[in-house]
């Protein structure tokens, strides 16, 4: 079985589980809807202020839903001895990591697109012109998040206080990615061309590559037991 095929199987398995149970996606969508209400209540009805804070709020909601979603990524494997199944899988274990990252990436992107739609509806903002730019920025920002998040989720799945440890480990590492993503989104929503934020996009790409490579190389050490 080729490397790509093994990664694909992990992705497929997670997708089928999610499609049948819909446990994570449903919860995340409900959670993101609640986030919108919380933003509205805490920032007040002042639309100007909400729009000014929109790039930050968007990524804040992506991160929060990501923390909830990714934290669960490996919990399913602990049931029914699935973990041992993964361990027994032949060949390079990083294929499992790649499959998991892809699954988490897709899950997060689905939630992000829906969140974006919810934002435009509830806060009455027009993002039509920014859509092509966002179509680039969202995946760039999310790949880095999913790459480290998947790695750390596999680690913290073993820890009793995982709900605390997972964000405490992940958030500081994600600062550069978050910064770049928010800055780029800010420019995109303001109608500027992406040329103005090229350094930030380069930072995002660099982060994505570094995190993915680091994850691929070290995942073996995490899965061992």
């Amino acid at each position, binding site marked *: 079985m080729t490397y790509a095929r093994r990664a694909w199987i992990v992705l497929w398995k997670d997708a089928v589980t999610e499609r049948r149970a819909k446990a994570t996606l449903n919860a995340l969508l409900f959670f993101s809807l609640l986030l919108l209400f919380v933003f509205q209540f805490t920032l007040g009805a002042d639309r100007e202020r909400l729009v000014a804070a929109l790039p930050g709020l968007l990524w804040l909601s992506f991160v929060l839903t990501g923390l909830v979603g990714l934290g669960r990524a490996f919990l399913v494997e602990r049931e029914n001895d699935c973990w041992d199944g993964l361990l027994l899988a032949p060949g390079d274990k990083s294929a499992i990591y790649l499959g998991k990252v892809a699954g988490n990436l897709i899950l997060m992107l689905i939630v992000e697109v829906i969140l974006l739609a919810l934002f435009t509806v509830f806060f009455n903002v027009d993002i039509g012109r920014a859509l092509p730019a966002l179509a680039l920025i969202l995946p760039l920002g999310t790949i880095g998040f999913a790459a*480290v998040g998947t*790695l*750390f989720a596999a*680690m913290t799945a*073993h*820890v*009793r*206080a995982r709900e605390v*440890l997972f964000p*405490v*480990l992940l*958030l*500081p*590492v994600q*600062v*550069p*990615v978050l*910064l770049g993503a928010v800055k780029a989104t800010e420019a995109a929503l303001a109608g500027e061309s992406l040329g103005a934020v090229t*350094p*930030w996009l380069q*930072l995002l790409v*660099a*982060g994505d590559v*570094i*995190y993915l490579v*680091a994850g691929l190389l*070290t995942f073996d*050490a*995490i899965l*061992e*037991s």
Partner: protein
Amino acid sequence: MSRALGTLALVGLAMGLVLGFLVAPRELTQGNVQRIMYVHVPAILVAYLAFGVVLIASIVYLVRRVDAADRIAHASAEVGLLYTGINIATGAIWGKPTWGTWWTWDARLTSVSIMFLMYLGYLLLREMVEDRERSARFAAVVGIIAALNMPLVHFSVYWWRTLHQPPSILRPGASALPRVFWMVVLVNVVAFALLYAYFVMKRTRVLAYEAEALA
């Protein structure tokens, strides 16, 4: 060996104190407050060194699985965190009279505090994973990721408007410091590095005893 290191570190620190307070002239615009830099700058430089050691020891541990490497990474992260804390604290004390504020969300302050938080998380992970061998493996992965992340964090310095003076040592081109300041900083860097080595040595030994006692 460790006693010699400790003595050397002590001598170095004493020299640094004498040089910093008696030999180095009073800075014209900032006054005596500027002398904090003789601690502030070496502390962060040695902290970077410490986290570099964490990175190398972590890689060695993942490849070779020698417990000594894990213990060095553990000890080095603790001392590095201490030095980063000293850097942040002295920076705040210096910032109050000079900038008029203890803290500001300037890029370099932010990036150092992010580093602080990353390695705090690293030590927290070590505490929370009960199985020793597993904790060593996980910590090694986080130690590598955190170090790889630092350049990304550091780059943001140049792209963000910043209140901090541009770095005076770690930057391309000639150093901006007059020779006396340079010398004092250099002596303190060596002294701090010796102290770091001494701490790591002691701490590594304690960790080894702990492992022995628990085995």
